[in-house]
């Protein structure tokens, strides 16, 4: 009989597994991907000091450490249902049911799909798909492509594709629509880039953020924005250009684009078709929280955390007995934050099993989450701290079982 089951072998799940196995719990991790590591596997960023954050190495390290402390990790297993039982949880997987007194859901995030006309043509994929194909599966997604959607993740991944010898012709915006919302409006995109500009890997953006503090300056920035855009690592980023349609017969052959006004409306007579053999669509990330929902967990809608998140306290407990959450499912942040949260969840599960002798470890781990958050190089939203506080208060108000 296991003490804890963890769904998801990403940085959060693996860190949690290590933390509770170290306290003597018997722990099992299941993950539907063919290898442990989650989205960490694809990550390749240059840190401000110039060193590379190599996600594959980090994932391998976590996987080894977990196995070394006795964690059982099963890959290629998908979980599709979670129901409470008198003694804990019954989890349905593609290889059978698993019973566990304590369950951690650490399923991460998924990408928001943006239905640009023509997006079902083979050769169109999400930006994260290209990241995994390039960095994990080591296959080029094409020769020359267009990235639709400008945000911190798509800019980082465009650079990763370029490192692998793939040409990014340009980065442009999606067509403005009710689905794309602000992601199709140059002014809004500019504003969101500026809010995270202090983290940007380019001095150009950093410089720009100094210049454009006030709203009217931002408006000016967008209206005077050079038609060719600015370049980062020689990749043109064109905030005044939108994709109208992805064209091709049996696969991607090009993108029909047009110049747009600062509020995202196409300018008549500026349409053209640019050739491309692949297209990446970047719509941002949102917590992949369906399993917590079917478990019956109360949710809150918190845009700064990426959408609907299961309500949980700072010990990563939900209001349902024996159900814990950690990582991107609780709000979209970087892998280092996910790891810190995983450690909290692992210690918290140990505590409620009566296996944690030193409660201070848990208190320190909770502190650690905030300090990792403060030092994060990639931040997906400027108001994460406020979003976290809101969820914490909701947990208190709903009196999540405090142990």
């Amino acid at each position: 009989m296991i003490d804890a089951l963890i769904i998801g072998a990403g940085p959060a799940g693996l860190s949690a597994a290590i933390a509770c196995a170290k306290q003597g719990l018997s722990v099992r991790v299941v993950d539907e991907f063919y290898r442990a590591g989650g989205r960490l596997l694809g990550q390749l960023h240059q840190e401000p000091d110039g060193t590379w954050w190599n996600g594959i190495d980090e994932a391998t390290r976590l996987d080894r450490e977990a196995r070394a402390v006795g964690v059982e990790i099963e890959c290629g297993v998908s979980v599709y249902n979670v129901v409470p039982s008198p003694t804990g949880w019954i989890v349905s997987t593609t290889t059978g049911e698993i019973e566990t007194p304590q369950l951690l859901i650490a399923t991460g995030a998924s990408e928001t799909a943006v239905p640009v006309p023509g997006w079902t043509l083979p050769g169109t994929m999400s930006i994260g798909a290209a990241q995994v194909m390039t960095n994990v599966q080591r296959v080029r997604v094409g020769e020359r492509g267009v990235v639709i959607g400008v945000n911190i993740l798509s800019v980082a991944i465009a650079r990763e594709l370029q490192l692998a010898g793939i040409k990014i012709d340009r980065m442009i915006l999606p067509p403005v629509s009710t689905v794309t919302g602000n992601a199709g409006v140059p002014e809004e995109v500019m504003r969101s880039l500026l809010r995270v500009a202090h983290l940007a890997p380019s001095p150009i953006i950093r410089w720009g953020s100094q210049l454009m503090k006030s709203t009217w300056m931002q408006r000016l920035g967008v209206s005077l924005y050079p038609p060719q855009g600015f370049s980062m690592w020689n990749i043109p980023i064109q905030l005044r250009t939108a994709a109208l349609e992805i064209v091709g017969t049996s696969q991607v052959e090009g993108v029909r684009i047009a110049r747009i006004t600062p509020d995202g409306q196409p300018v008549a007579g500026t349409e053209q078709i640019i050739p491309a053999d692949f297209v990446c669509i970047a719509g941002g990330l949102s917590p992949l929280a369906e399993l917590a929902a079917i478990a019956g967990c109360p949710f809150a809608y918190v845009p700064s955390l990426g959408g609907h998140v299961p309500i949980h306290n700072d010990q990563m407990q939900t209001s349902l007995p024996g159900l814990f959450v950690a990582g991107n499912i609780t709000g979209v942040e970087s892998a280092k934050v996910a790891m810190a949260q995983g450690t909290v969840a692992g210690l918290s599960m140990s505590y409620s099993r009566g296996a944690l002798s030193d409660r201070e470890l848990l208190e320190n781990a909770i502190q650690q989450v905030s300090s990792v958050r403060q030092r994060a190089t990639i931040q997906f939203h400027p108001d994460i701290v406020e979003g976290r506080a809101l969820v914490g208060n909701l947990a208190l108000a709903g009196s999540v079982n405090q142990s």
Partner: protein
Amino acid sequence: MSQRIVDHPVLGSLAARNQLRFTFNGTPYSAYEGETIAAALLASGVRTLRVHEEKGTPRGIYCNIGHCYECRVNVDGVPTVRACMTLVQDGMQVTAGTVLPTPLKKGGHSQ
């Protein structure tokens, strides 16, 4: 013409791996051990993994991490297998999803 990234400036070079053989719609392809069906096919220039069950329009991968089910194929007779999540095994027979009959469309008349 393989699209594999053998040498990478940051991630380093790939070690030699065992070569496997599999078929897609009856055509032989090769893969390396540890490659997904989607990656092995893309490396050989194959992007269409199925056609839309009703409209017949071509589809490939979209998310590459198991979320969208766009890449579903038949593997050794098992339908709805995600090509982006499934490693190639030697001798595997993969086929693309095809157009299926929709007898109940348009008020119950098949065309």
